[in-house]
């Protein structure tokens, strides 16, 4: 019976200083911040393959000068399942990070979506092409990026540009 406590202990034992663990909203949600984004493959592989977590999804959040990439992994234990989220910070000018789609095939589509909306390049992804591909959007328009999102009005202008085309 895997519980939250000993999973966290195992993580700290294996990665020690390279990660810092924070408790999330309640007992069942923990966030693991990666000091260096290169370790993302190793920790995701350890959680998914060795500890038997189920890969839930990845989330992209656009910060001022970095893009946060979150890997959500769930442990389905009847009665007290819990979620571990691994956070990797990808610096902005040219956001790129290693792909995990060869470890978890299910991650193929979400990595393509994050690439399309946040312009984060996943090195080693088999076919990194935009997933939603609405054909009227110009290639360099990333709606979820902070510069675009900050001023809501700017979205309408950019959108008008798209409509006239």
């Amino acid at each position, binding site marked *: 019976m895997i519980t939250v406590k000993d999973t966290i202990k195992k993580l700290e034992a294996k990665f020690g200083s390279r990660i810092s663990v924070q408790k999330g909203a*309640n007992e069942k949600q923990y966030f693991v911040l990666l000091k260096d984004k290169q370790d993302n493959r190793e920790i995701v592989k350890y959680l998914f393959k060795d500890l038997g977590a189920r890969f839930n999804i990845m*989330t992209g959040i656009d910060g001022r000068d970095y893009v946060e990439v979150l890997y959500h992994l769930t442990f389905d234990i009847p009665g007290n399942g819990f979620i571990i989220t691994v956070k990797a910070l990808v610096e902005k000018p040219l956001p790129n990070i290693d792909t995990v789609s060869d470890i978890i095939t299910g991650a193929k589509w979400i990595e393509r979506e994050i690439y399309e909306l946040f312009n984060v390049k996943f090195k080693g992804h088999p076919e990194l092409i935009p997933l939603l591909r609405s054909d009227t959007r110009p290639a360099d328009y990333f709606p979820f990026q902070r510069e675009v999102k900050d001023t809501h009005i700017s*979205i309408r202008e950019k959108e008008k540009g798209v409509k006239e085309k």
Partner: protein
Amino acid sequence: MAKIIPTGPFHPILEEPEFFKFHVEGETITKIDMRIGYSHRGIELLSEEKTWDQVPFLVERICGICSFSHPYAYCLAVEALAGAEVPERAKYIRAIVAELERLHSHLLWMGLAGHFIGYNTVFMWVWKWREIVLDALEMTTGNRNHYANVKPGGVRRDIEEYMIPQLQQWLDELEPKLDMLIKVVMDDPVLHARLKGVGVLTKEQAIDYCVLGPTARASGIDIDVRRDHPFDAYPLLDWKVVVLEAGDVFSKAAVRLLENLESMKIVRQSLKKMKPGPIVNEIKEVPEGEAIGLYEAPRGETFHYIRSDGSNMPIRHKVRAPSYMNILSNEVSCVGADLSDGGLITAAHDPCYSCTERLSAVRDALPDFVLDGKELAKLSREKTGRISKEIQQENSKIEKELSK
């Protein structure tokens, strides 16, 4: 054949824009490319301009068939972040409306699947019974779907005393029909021959593709958010999770059929256990931080991630519908099947965009020919026709031997 560009001709099967390309050698499918995103509306950006209380209205309109699951998962996330405790009665009301919606969604899929295999009468009958569930939902929440019933901290509308006997009477009316439906599907030789062993998703593949809900439970993975990550009323009720091993289209249908009975059980128990009391305790303010909400939608686990900076609006809201993971599993379950089953397998896990509007089969030598979603439906109906003839012949042979 020339390229066919249908742009939304109506089809009794719910048509949403989704595009599959099967690479075919002769009749067997070797590879599949999928393209989604035709009805991408950029919901996550919209929810960053809404306050905590307005987001459920937006999030429930992501999809018409699971319009209670998304707001429910969102509210669980907000309640986790705010540390709010939901009153007892609200928990039971949420369970009732959630399970009624599961019934309504599974019956909808049953009808469409019946049409897809060629039994039009099944389509009409099952949708006729589904109206009973919609009446129940309309009485308790005011609308047939898009119930706007759940809010962070509780429920918007109470279930009055006079409603309960009427609800129980409707459920008793529906129960024999569900049993009949299960009997029809479970021992109809044509369906067995037609659906058994088709589009198999083995347990390892299911784990690797992280499929969810009935699609996973049909391949032997025993996961169910209501039991694994207990919330609200589910730990207080007794019901069991239906798990089958075969992973083919037949067990995907069977899992849904048996789940209907479990949902009926949950609704009945909740109606009995409900005690009068408050139905909401308002959440004054949401502290800074991030939280995750999970709920078991009819098609699998919905995932909501919210991050707030203490203001009255979320600064990031990530939504992942269950079909996002299930549709990807087509890559594996379709390979090796023959073309007339292609449409059936893609529709088997009841994707939220449950349609194969346009499907083109690419033959290496011949120019690719485009099969409309309807043509696919026809192919699968013919196969049913053929199989039912073979079975009739076998039966007649057996009768001849018996009569000798």
